[in-house]
């Protein structure tokens, strides 16, 4: 599957395209197929996202898993500071990224 990610313009937060809006959680990301250019252009022009790009991902039981480690780190947060990630209570979260 293909999903779109970017950063929030004001806060810099990592965000994922949900089909109608942007979410901080990769679990909410939807498959955009080949329809990504138009979405990215429109959303960036409206400043609802900054520097969006499309990535490959795989659907798993926990939701979309980005193909590249860099985007998996983005989806979680720094593996060396789990307390600052989106899953602070899950000690294994960092290992699943690798």
């Amino acid at each position, binding site marked *: 599957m293909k999903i779109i990610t970017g950063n929030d313009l004001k*806060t810099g937060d990592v965000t994922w395209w949900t089909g109608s809006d942007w979410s901080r959680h990769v679990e909410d990301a939807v498959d955009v197929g080949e329809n990504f250019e138009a979405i990215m252009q429109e959303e960036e022009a409206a400043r609802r996202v900054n520097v969006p790009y499309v990535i490959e991902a795989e659907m798993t039981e926990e939701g979309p898993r980005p193909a590249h480690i860099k985007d998996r780190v983005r989806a979680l947060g720094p593996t*060396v*500071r789990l307390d*600052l990630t989106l899953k602070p209570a899950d000690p294994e979260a960092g290992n699943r990224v690798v």
Partner: protein
Amino acid sequence: MYQYDKYDQQMVDTRVAEFRDQVERRLAGELTEDQFKPLRLMNGLYLQLHAYMLRVAIPYGTLNGKQMRMLGHIARKYDRDYGHFTTRQNIQYNWIKLEDAPDILADLASVEMHAIQTSGNCIRNISSDQYAGAAADEIADPRPWAEILRQWSSFHPEFSYLPRKFKIAVIASDEDRAAMRLHDIGIQLVHKDGELGAKFFVGGGMGRTPMIAPEIRDFVPADELISYAEACLRVYNRYGRRDNKYKARIKILVHELGKEEYTRQVEEEFAHMKTLGLNPPVEELARISEYFADPAFDTNASDDLDLSDPDFNLWVDQNTEKHKQAGYAIAVISLKPTSGIPGDASSAQIDLMADLAEQYSFDELRVTHSQNIVLPHVKKSDLYTLWQKLDEAGLAPANLDLITDSIACPGLDYCSLANARSIPLAQKISERFADLGRQRELGELKLKISGCINACGHHHAGHIGILGVDRKGTENYQLLLGGSAAEDTSLAKITGPGFDEDGVIDAIETVTDLYLKERQEDERFIDTYRRVGMAAFKEAIYG
């Protein structure tokens, strides 16, 4: 240390207003990201993996308690309660909001600080010897020269869209503690016929094509410093490569032209530049130098030290350096605890270091390119109390220059350029070699880790270097041996095929074991490596 006058203050205040306006135009959609990016970068604001990142300049690594406390305040108010001290003697914050950035710059300006030109293709923060003004071996304090260069390079209209970033370091002793020859311009202050001047080295750097800067001029007088630097920069701005980002640094230009031809062009430009009235008079250097006069040392201070506490003894032995003033020492606070993140400090630790600087070090701190903090002027009779307070806050690892005092870039945990994580390696190595007796047995060993070819973790200059790469989507680590950023500058070589995380740590253990076996007398790791050669180490690692 230097204090702003009304002009300096006005410049940084105006910059805050300018950037506030630029941010507003970006948020209102009047600037595209492409147009805004160079503007935010010239104010130190990156867009990183998780958020915006702000890099704050700490000119030549020197700051006072009030400034340090402001860095703690920013960590608390605008970030997630910590900051990361970098290999350019700066600090960066990982979780900044664009809409807060102008307020942060305003807070910084209130204590004579800024983030000007901490990124972008311009002249970056000038770095220097972290022991400047305290070192027993310096011929002069290099910081007034660095400050002259800071002012000249700030808002430089001709050199703000260079082919690539540009880094300058200034030192004033034969021992090089600032990786001077791995800079675009390295300056060493020297005497000639009783006059103080600058020896210029141009075209060094790390990155994907590491080079050691050759000397291009043995003496530039103080009142021609700026015109000579202008000449070096103009030749680069005109002829540095712009067709390939990875060949755009000045080192490639100097290499491709050859040192002689580059020097000839600089001299020709210099002859012209000298006539343009670009140089501040010597009175300006004198004015600035007054701010760097020695603090009021107690000339009766005793050199005696009670070393009966064995842990204190270890810390004094490892983490203090000889001061030029009898009865004083330079104390280094290691930001490399076992399992810690190299260079990270919490706001509470930052505040504490600010307090300790005020109490024990004439209100001065330094940031080192090895990501540690220095209290430059500590009375020996205060060392024990100081150490106790540091130890309580987890700031007294006695590992300066030992294998666990590693440099590590932020790596893939934070950086959008990285291919592999660096910090977890530094952490695991610090755990594997946690025994201080074992570390001390290995002696001085500079371990430097980069998470990509851009070499922010200085892996080329490590006695042992590690370079993280991406191998078909997994993290892979190459091992390098034989680099040095000191006066015996050398570039490390790759041992062979890479390893996974545990594999590279095993390999490090193999090479340190071989060193212990082969070592003669008091050779350091790097000395044994240079004598024995790569082959024996390769054989030990790969069989």
